[in-house]
């Protein structure tokens, strides 16, 4: 098969950058009652790294993301996240009683708030809708507003929870381009939850697979983003085999892997 897939079989070591990771979880555990959703989970995300998180429904992806977003308390646990972070949820969660630009400006501190909101909206191509009411936006437009609202804060960590799941295929591809452009311009670390292997392959530097409460596999994609067209299918098969437990054991890469740390 494609030689470029070989690295999937070898332990992947996150590049030992000079900068400390922006996200660092060690032995993180999350329970709801007797239900252990995440157990002993370790995760590092480097500054500016684009990470996709795959996993079957109910595997705890949203739970993990909520922890990183600071929406669930993680008392007494070894969790490091940057102070400046922003979330884009699957539903845009715009306040319907605030005009689009005021939604983007929500909670901004400092001067020229309106100018900052307007230029963020301009970046996502919605300069003409700044005075619209959110309920008059299409789903794709609402998600772009949500992206603008997240990015206007210049977060060090951008959390995306299946942000494009509700969009049609064409709009989704457009949104992928937009997200990549924005990511290149602002360079936040990104953790994107998705069900869509194609999406993960197209966008991410690194793909994580969450299963049974921990990161059960991960892979770094070194190929430039434009040349990943034929990569999605083998990846999908790979991840399916990992989730079914029939993948060769060295494809399941415990984290932290290798000599990192």
């Amino acid at each position: 098969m494609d030689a470029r897939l070989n690295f999937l079989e070898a332990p992947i070591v996150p590049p030992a950058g000079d900068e400390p990771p922006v996200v660092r979880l060690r032995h993180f555990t999350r329970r709801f009652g007797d239900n252990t959703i995440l157990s002993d989970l370790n995760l590092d995300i480097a500054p500016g790294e684009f990470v996709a998180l795959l996993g079957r429904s109910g595997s705890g992806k949203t739970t993990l993301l909520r922890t990183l977003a600071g929406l669930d308390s993680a008392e007494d646990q070894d969790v490091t996240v940057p102070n400046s972070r922003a979330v884009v949820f699957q539903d845009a969660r715009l306040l319907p009683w605030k005009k689009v630009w005021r939604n983007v400006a929500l909670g901004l501190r400092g001067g020229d708030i309106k100018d900052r909101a307007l230029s963020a909206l301009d970046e996502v191509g919605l300069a003409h809708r700044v005075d619209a009411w959110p309920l008059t936006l299409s789903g794709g437009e609402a998600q772009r507003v949500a992206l603008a609202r997240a990015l206007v804060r210049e977060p060090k960590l951008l959390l995306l929870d299946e942000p494009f799941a509700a969009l049609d295929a064409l709009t989704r591809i457009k949104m992928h381009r937009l997200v990549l452009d924005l990511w290149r311009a602002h360079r936040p670390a990104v953790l994107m939850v998705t069900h869509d292997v194609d999406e993960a392959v197209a966008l991410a530097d690194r793909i994580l697979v969450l299963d049974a409460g921990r990161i059960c596999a991960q892979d770094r994609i070194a190929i430039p983003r434009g040349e990943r067209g034929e990569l999605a299918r083998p990846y999908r098969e790979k991840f399916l085999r990992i989730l079914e437990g029939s993948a060769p054991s060295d494809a399941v890469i415990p984290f932290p892997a290798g000599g990192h740390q």
Partner: protein
Amino acid sequence: MSVLQKLAQSRWFSPLALLAVWEAGSRLGLIPERTLAAPSAVAETLLGMLTSGELPSNLAVSFGRVLSGLAIGVTLGIVLALVAGLSRKGEAAIDPLMQIKRTIPTLALTPLFIVWFGIGETPKIALIAFASMFPVYLNLYSGIRGVDLRLLEGARSFGLTRAEQVWHVILPGSLPSLLVGLRYSLSISILVLVVAEQINASAGLGYLINNARDFMRTDIIVVCLMVYAVLGLAADWIVRTIENRALVWRPSLVKA
């Protein structure tokens, strides 16, 4: 289609027909004046009461009572709902009392209010205030509790302080409920006004009606009933106007 045919199909037909039958009945002596005055007589009385200033001055008195009662009641309702809706302690302190009160019809308290406050203006205003407080309280409280948690969480994820969350999310989110409560409060306040003004009033619409009853002036009674109806319509119009302005963002009201 002839004018008559058109009229027969319009929504105005039955009320107009009723008026015509009523008028004809009065003219033919089928409906005695002391049972019900003829529409023409009512119109005449209305004009007379307007020009003499009798109606405007009494209306102003009643209006003042509703307004003061509402101002007190609605303010109290809003404050209590905010306290109960925004804090657990407030909820524990206030909500049980409010739910108990809900089981007692306000008008049943009239005798007690007369004992406490006498027969002057105070019991009238107090009754209106007391009655109009509850719809506002109940609706605003449940509105605050029903605010979309996902929106609140979104706001929280952007680092809004608790005060900012209340201001940007909870209050605007519960505004539609508050307006529903306000609408009920307005109509209840007029209902209570009617009863409260039966308490030994020396001015106001209720006073006019009581006087008219003693002299069997059905024309004046009908005029006052019409004024009550107009008050009710005006109250509805006021809330509708507020809604149209405050809730422009709602889909049904958003213009393309």
